């Protein structure tokens, strides 16, 4: 059974690899045409949430999947992005397309401040510190009432508007905005993974000591990956804030961090496609299985445990059978 599955996934990979020129455009047309194929607002909303979580898990995947560093605090960057964008756009009356980069940038700076001291350490310390950071951020959001309005949250966040047109779910604007953001994130992650930095990160994941010996600046690359990851999480947060138009500290708890981590693990650490698959599965899961509602989080926990036991590499993870392409030129 296991053999068959991995054979199947290998065959699919090989098929995609050999028919690149057909598969990708078809996929692009499918994605762009999706809202017109009679989807209700409800379905579209879920699909947009899948997109948001894909962004989050892609960014966490860079840190956890490629560099092998477990972060349990990505909800914090998500929250920072959402709050900064919402607050800036409300108090300075700025457009979403200005506030979102600001929000992502500030999330990135927070990532730098957190990453510098903690990434020198080994994985478990990082996991706990990021978890603590996430709680600190939530406490600040709850208690700094003069700015964040505390537990009441921020409501009536302006919708993103593009050239004077307000983007909503019903005119598909938010959907395309999500697709654009997601494409941006995916391209960035793919570019990083294929670059020197990506190889350095994978070397760190496999054996940090050996990587250091080979002259890889491990701390530098880990911090860089962490900052980039925080940046895109912040971007996802900004998008979320302007889509839902209401945020409060309870949206960004430890549960959110665990959800993102579950997606990364379920989809397959160190894969790109796995992030989309994992998000699609875990975001639509509570909608499809409404009768399980209460047990949803138990199932999340079980997913983590069972996956680690039987398939630690995730659904799409595992050793690549396609030959490694050497970079052109050089020697």
């Amino acid at each position: 059974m296991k053999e068959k599955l991995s054979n199947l996934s290998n065959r699919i990979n090989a098929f995609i690899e050999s028919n690149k020129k057909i598969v990708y455009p078809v996929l692009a047309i499918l994605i762009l045409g999706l809202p017109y194929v009679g989807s209700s607002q409800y379905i579209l909303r879920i699909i947009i949430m899948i997109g948001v979580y894909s962004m989050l898990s892609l960014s966490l995947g860079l840190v956890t999947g490629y560099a092998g560093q477990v972060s349990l605090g990505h909800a914090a960057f998500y929250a920072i992005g959402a709050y900064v964008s919402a607050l800036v756009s409300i108090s300075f009356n700025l457009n979403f397309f200005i506030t979102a980069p600001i929000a992502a940038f500030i999330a990135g700076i927070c990532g730098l401040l957190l990453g510098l001291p903690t990434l020198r350490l080994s994985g478990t310390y990082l996991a706990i510190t990021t978890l603590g950071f996430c709680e600190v951020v939530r406490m600040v959001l709850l208690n700094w009432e003069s700015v964040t309005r505390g537990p009441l949250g921020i409501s009536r966040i302006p919708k993103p508007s593009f050239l004077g047109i307000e983007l909503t779910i019903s005119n598909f604007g938010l959907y395309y905005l999500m697709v654009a953001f997601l494409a941006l994130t995916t391209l960035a992650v793919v570019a990083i993974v294929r670059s020197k930095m990506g190889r350095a990160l994978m070397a760190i994941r496999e054996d940090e000591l050996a990587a250091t010996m080979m002259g890889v600046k491990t701390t530098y690359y880990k911090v860089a990956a962490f900052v980039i990851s925080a940046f895109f999480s912040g971007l996802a947060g900004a998008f979320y804030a302007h889509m839902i138009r209401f945020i409060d500290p309870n949206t960004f708890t430890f549960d959110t961090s665990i959800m993102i981590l579950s997606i990364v693990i379920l989809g397959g650490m160190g894969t790109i496609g796995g992030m989309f698959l994992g998000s699609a599965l875990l975001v639509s899961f509570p909608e499809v299985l409404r009768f399980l509602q209460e047990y949803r989080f138990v199932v999340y926990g079980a997913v983590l445990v069972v996956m680690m036991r039987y398939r630690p590499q995730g659904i799409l993870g595992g050793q690549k059978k396609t030959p490694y392409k050497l970079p052109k030129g050089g020697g």
Partner: protein
Amino acid sequence: MVLQQLSNGLTLGMVYALIAVGYSLVFGILRLVNFSHGSVYAFGAHMAMLFVSMQFGIIPAFILSIVLTGILGIAIDKMALAPLRAKKSKGIAALITTIGISYIIQNVLMITFGSQTKFFPKLFDFGSIYIGGVAFNTTQICISGVSLMLLLILSCVIRYTKVGLAMRAVEQNQKAANLMGIDVNFVVTFTFFLGGASAAIAGTLISGYYQIVYPNMGFVAGLKAFSAAVLGGIGVLYGSIFGGLVVGISESFAAAYLGGSYRDAVAFLILIIVLLIKPTGLFGKKGITKV
């Protein structure tokens, strides 16, 4: 006022130390931060509450909860972590497994007992004792006393018994210990039992102190105890005790002088400062976290 806060802090600190010891024991032997420890602690408190509400009386409820939670610790090890060790998986796999377990326990507690906070009867309440104008709560004194006694017993177990010797051997070098005829798996299981039992005691004591129980109680308490363990040097028993006291006292002072809303942040600040300045902790051995 200062003395009052000090005594509050000492009480809290003693209990944190009890939880921190659980982290420290497991980390010492497996080099694994056991994320499920916080929810094991919550499980212990809930069991105690359940048995108290079934009219078992405080002491039998206490003992039953300790035994059951210890067994839960063993079950976690046998069902989830031992197979990973047998497969020689990476450390990250075990770490994520413990996160998953913590999630399962916490949510099962929430489903069976409800997510609201529940009342827990006060433990050891014999009124207050006044010494020099400061009210010493007997609850606090008893909690500190019980914790101190248990920490001493734990230290003695590790220092003077055969199992303790085996634990220390496994901590130093698992392979060599195995070659010397030590049953490593038994030692690990025993460690998990000790961790679970001490978490149950801590959970029951804290619930008796605050008089409330809720499923998420282990999350923040676990984090604080972990900060305490890191502060003292994770893997070092007396370090955890010292760390627990520091975290407890600074928390109660923060609650008094900075306001209650930021009291939980103090432990994390301590954690981040320690990681910045001396990642091995105050009494930590070198070479644990080095890459």
